[in-house]
């Protein structure tokens, strides 16, 4: 285990060194990535100047939802860079996975170590700034449970979104081409979770409650932390389901990954 960890860190440090080669373009990348993502919150912020609130959520409350999920998605996108279906499908197409299979180290570990996209820092930073803006402007009555819930949300969200990246990449074992529809769940998931879930039509909400239970990752914990009443009348433990959702999704995804890997046929390139 320790050997694996040190190997992973070594792989990542190589990645970082190569990304830092062009320092100026690295930092412009970080900053512009941050700005790109921030422009979405900025437009929500502006539009709420006119409308006041959305489904009963003020700007600061929206900032909480947005900041949380952006930090998590940015972190996940960095950590699971290798499993990004866009880059992983290239791995398959170019036959690079064959090399990976030959090495005496776990395949998943190598994929984790194969990429670590540092410019996601930009996305994380803007998310963190928005979250700080939210916490400064919201009268949250902090309790130990609420404080503890924040890192739990973070880790659960990373696990759940990472699971989707992993599942998306696993699909390419069969399809070779990347499956773009998975973007609806990954990038679309961030979009969906950055708004109060009550705004979505019933069928869509049902989908995100029972099939891909995004609703418990961000919306319900936020209701609890911000002391907002539950408009949907789900059980009282709903705000605490995030780790279960994240854990189960990641578990299922890694099983799926194992199945996919055993079905892998090289493209021969």
């Amino acid at each position, binding site marked *: 285990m320790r050997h694996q960890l040190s190997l992973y860190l070594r792989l990542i440090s190589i990645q970082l060194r190569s990304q830092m080669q062009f320092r100026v*373009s690295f930092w412009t990348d*970080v900053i512009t990535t941050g700005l790109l993502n921030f422009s979405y919150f900025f437009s*929500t912020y502006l*539009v709420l100047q*006119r409308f006041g609130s*959305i489904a009963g959520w003020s700007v600061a409350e929206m900032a909480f939802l947005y900041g949380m999920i952006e930090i998590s998605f940015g972190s996940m996108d960095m950590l699971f860079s290798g499993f990004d279906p866009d880059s992983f499908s290239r791995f398959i197409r170019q036959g690079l996975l064959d090399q990976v299979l030959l090495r005496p180290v776990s395949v998943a570990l190598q994929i984790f170590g194969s990429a670590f996209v540092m410019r996601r820092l930009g996305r994380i930073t803007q998310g963190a700034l928005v979250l700080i803006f939210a916490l400064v402007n919201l009268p949250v009555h902090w309790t130990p449970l609420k404080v503890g819930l924040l890192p739990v949300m973070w880790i659960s969200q990373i696990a759940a979104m990472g699971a989707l990246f992993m599942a998306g990449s696993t699909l390419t074992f069969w399809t070779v081409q990347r*499956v773009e529809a998975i973007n609806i769940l990954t990038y679309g998931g961030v979009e969906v979770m950055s708004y109060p879930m009550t705004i*979505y039509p019933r069928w869509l909400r049902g989908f995100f409650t029972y099939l891909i239970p995004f609703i418990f990752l961000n919306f319900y914990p936020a209701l609890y932390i911000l002391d907002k009443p539950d408009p949907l009348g789900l059980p009282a433990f709903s705000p605490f389901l995030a780790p279960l959702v994240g854990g189960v999704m990641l578990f299922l995804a890694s099983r799926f990954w194992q199945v996919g890997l055993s079905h892998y046929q090289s493209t021969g390139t």
Partner: protein
Amino acid sequence: MRLFLHLIKLSILEQATYRTALVAGLVTNFFWGFFRAAVIVALYNGRSEVNGLTLEGALTYIAIGQAMIAFLSLFGTFDLMTTVYSGSIASDLIRPVPLFVLWMARDLGHSLVNLVVRGLLLLLFFALFYPVVMPESLLGWVWTILALAASWLVSYAWRFLVNLAAFWTPDARGIGRGAYALSQLASGFIIPLRLYPEWFSRLCHLTPFPAMFNTGVEVYLGVVSGSQLGWALGVQGMWFIVLVFLSQIILRAGIRKLVIQGG
């Protein structure tokens, strides 16, 4: 002109071969439309009109935005940049067609395929679930087509300009992303410009970006009408000319600097 048309035809054929990608793009853009429409409905919260934009109008605005992502390349393009880095720009520069025109033909071919597959089909599907309004008269359609064509021209010229950054830095993608973030926000793609606070939409209208998207949609919706129509299209034309002019100056400076590594 015949060469230009031929280039467009080649580009259409090229784009049309990527059928699965086209369908996947359509599906993604379509679902995203649902997410965004829900936000609009929640914002309106029972109001039937906000700042001259009805709820149906705003929903249609969103639908057109999703439908035009690929036609107007609203997320940006990086193709010209790539040729600067690979060196294949050298062979493009010795062609008997100006670089701006060459890429325009390539871009237009892709756009036209996307207009049909990801544009019109998306609008049709969307209309099954949400109210989508349409121009009421034939004349309305004519103005719409003109305004959307002008939007395309402005979008193309803007993207050409952004790509030229590749002449000065070894990785201009970051700059590109930043530039396209700005144009998405200020063009009205993220949220219809009319729904922003007055000061912000006025600020946007000082930039070329509304001419890339917002104007086309407002003409389609009939929000811009009568004597304003000529003015709106004039502004689009003005921005196109400004961007072309700017990009030609910058291109000339860039080429003077360009060194192609042999290979």
